[in-house]
């Protein structure tokens, strides 16, 4: 059984209440940090831990914190990004529902480290139950003296607020989140300036994912070096993976980074294999935005090595044969899944969620969705496939925020790896409406690539 850091006590009855959480060693990190560590010590521990942002981009959290500008007389803010709305990702919701005090404890320690006296948790509007859970938990923590003025007699003040969003995917982008938090339309800002210099209300701000903030708790409790021992290479610690799709045991798993993808899918400890005796066809490894990979490429890299659940291993091979760990939304597609339909569905999502600020993303996402719809419903032509690749290329990299890239990558990768399935939809429109392409050669062992240097 692998080490659990965040979910160690997840099955303790009543862990969502302050008393039980405290009894299980909760809020020790707050006591340790406020009583024995300076804010810079905490930042140093996080740096040492090698923790990388769990929201998708994987930027080192300690580094992000050290970039925070600290001008005199200007307040600093910590904002927790709980606007989790990526298709396939549901780890933050699970964490906030079941163990809300972990997030609050992380917020207190992180705010202390950053010198923020007002911090916000921006929760997606659809998650009303979680918002109520968090508000209740904050009230409990405040009653116990862990929030408010002069926490634990350390002289550190912190007010923590929960802000419901309007339910827009785009507000998960940090600058759009800040706009929304300020009460404006959630359009991403142009960077630079980065939030670390000019964020919420023009003040230096750090925006972190729920899981990143929660991970600060074990880092402070056990020390950054200890945390860095878990994992492989630059992927340290544990990661929550939201496993979904046609697997025997879907759900949220805390894994040590470095577990092999094969073990994650097939072992009884995690997903428990593909349901109903089907075979694996493809995996979207990190939420809908990352490139989809066929079975053979997700299990092995092109060098013939086992692919591991780490930032590096999953992105091995670049976009040609690799993908990304992203936010950990692990969607498994079996042989009955239609890649075209799946791609269309993702595309529909991005079409709906584009903020409409940059022209390529506003117009291009809708265009891709319409072409994919046409392909899926048997009215497509062969030239549509190249058109999609071309439109995806026109969007990618040409927008203010990464939503344009996120919309382009799934389409481009699906065509890159499953082109014959798209072509089959064009050549056999009637069959495509009734059945699907099946597994084909997508799980065949990879051909040995001749080394050309």
């Amino acid at each position, binding site marked *: 059984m692998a080490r659990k850091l965040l979910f160690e006590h997840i099955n303790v009855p009543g862990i969502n209440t302050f008393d039980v959480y405290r009894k299980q060693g909760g809020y020790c990190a707050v006591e340790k940090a406020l009583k024995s560590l300076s804010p810079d010590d905490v930042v140093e521990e996080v740096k040492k831990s090698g923790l990388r942002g769990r929201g998708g981009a994987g930027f080192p959290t300690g580094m992000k914190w050290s970039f925070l500008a600290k001008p005199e007389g200007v307040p600093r803010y910590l904002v927790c990004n709980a606007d989790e709305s990526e298709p396939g990702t549901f780890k933050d919701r699970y964490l906030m529902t079941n163990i809300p005090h972990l997030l609050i404890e992380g917020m207190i320690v992180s705010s202390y480290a950053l010198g923020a006296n007002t911090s916000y948790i921006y929760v997606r509007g659809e998650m009303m139950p979680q918002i109520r859970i968090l508000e209740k938990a904050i009230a409990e923590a405040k009653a116990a003296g862990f929030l408010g003025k002069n926490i634990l007699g350390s002289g550190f003040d912190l007010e923590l607020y929960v802000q419901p969003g309007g339910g827009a995917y785009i507000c998960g982008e940090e600058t759009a989140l800040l706009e929304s938090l300020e009460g404006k339309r959630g359009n991403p800002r142009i960077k630079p300036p980065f939030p670390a210099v000019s964020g919420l209300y023009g003040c230096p701000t750090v925006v972190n994912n729920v899981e990143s903030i929660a991970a600060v708790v074990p880092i402070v409790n056990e020390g950054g070096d200890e945390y860095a021992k878990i994992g492989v290479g630059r992927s340290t610690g544990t990661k929550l993976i939201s496993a979904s799709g046609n697997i025997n045991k879907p759900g949220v798993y805390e894994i040590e980074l470095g577990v092999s993808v094969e073990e994650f899918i097939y072992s009884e400890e995690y997903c428990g294999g593909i349901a109903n005796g089907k075979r694996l066809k493809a995996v979207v490894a990190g939420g809908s935005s990352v490139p989809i990979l066929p079975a053979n490429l997700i299990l092995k890299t092109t060098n013939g090595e086992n692919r591991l659940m780490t930032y590096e291993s999953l992105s091995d091979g670049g976009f040609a044969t690799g993908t990304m760990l992203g936010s950990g939304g692990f969607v498994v597609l079996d042989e009955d899944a239609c890649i075209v339909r799946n791609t269309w569905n993702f595309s529909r999502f991005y079409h709906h969620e584009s*903020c409409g*600020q*940059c*022209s390529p993303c*506003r*117009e291009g996402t809708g265009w891709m969705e319409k072409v994919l719809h046409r392909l899926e419903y048997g009215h497509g032509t062969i030239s549509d496939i190249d058109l999609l690749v071309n439109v995806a290329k026109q969007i990618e990299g*040409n927008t203010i925020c990464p939503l344009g890239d996120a919309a382009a990558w799934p389409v481009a990768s699906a065509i890159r790896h499953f082109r014959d399935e798209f072509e089959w939809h064009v050549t056999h429109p009637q069959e495509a409406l009734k059945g699907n392409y099946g597994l084909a050669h997508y799980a065949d062992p990879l051909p040995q690539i001749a080394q050309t240097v």
Partner: protein
Amino acid sequence: MSDKVKVTIDGIAVEVAPGTTILNAARQIGGDIVPPAMCYYSKLEGSGGKCRTCLVKVSKGSEKDPRPMPKLVASCRTTVMDGMEVENITSPEVVEARKGVVEMLLINHPLDCPVCDQAGECSLQDLGFEHGAAQTRYEFDRRTFERIDIGDKIQLHMNRCILCYRCTYVADQLTDGRCHGVIGRGDHAEISTYIEKAVDNDYSGNMIDVCPVGALTDKTFRFKNRVWFTKPVDAHRDCPTCSGKVTLWYKGEEVIRVTARKDQYNEVEEFICNTCRFDKKSTSDWVIEGPTAIRHDSVISSNHYETLKPLPVIQKNEKLIEANLEQFQKTQKD
């Protein structure tokens, strides 16, 4: 040491004040290396960055940090650094990306130029002419909206809108009590006044001037004339609200439209008030300054005084040729 920074755009070096954007540095050089801008408007704070037509490649970040920027950047919102090297029309990547952006801008545009009042002075038309493809690859229904009256003087034709947000900045920065903004999201976003409330403010008419396309049109001018049949004349009046410096657009004896004066980038020099724009439409209201300078490659100049062909009698007489040398030179350019 001078406090200016040096930036090289398409191989042409220029020294500009620190904090200048790449686009404005390029405008100081001028000519065809200036990136097109559909949403940026120098007079409106915070505008730009949205349309992505001004994308350029920064091949060298600065003297201190010579790394190139990883992605194409919006030149209207990226400030120059000392020693920065920028590629605009010399970079095939930029030209390709811009072509892509123009295609995106046009896929939902109705292309109703033959009946659009903006035709002839439309930035999108120019942009499409320079960078667009002759044929569209878009085979679906274009999005459509009902026309909306914003007050009694302005009509919103949302089909043509490219969501540059300029008019919302006008509403924000020139008018008080904003009731005009963008509602909806993605490609179903639209410019609107809440519950179609009239925009009623002294400066609201400037929305028409800042609109790069024919989405916001002057109802007092709608369908009156094609812009290239009118003659622009600079004029001013003593206006208590605004500077009173305008361009009058004549058709024969009649002033059929009043707009603010626009520079070569289609940006107004000074915003004007609604009284000047909508209510003062007779020559006696104005002090005429002279014909407006129009770029000779603009369609508007096809009917302009300066480019009128000299009469045959002038063309034959040497003394008259010498006296009208300036006019002759202009004629030869066309």
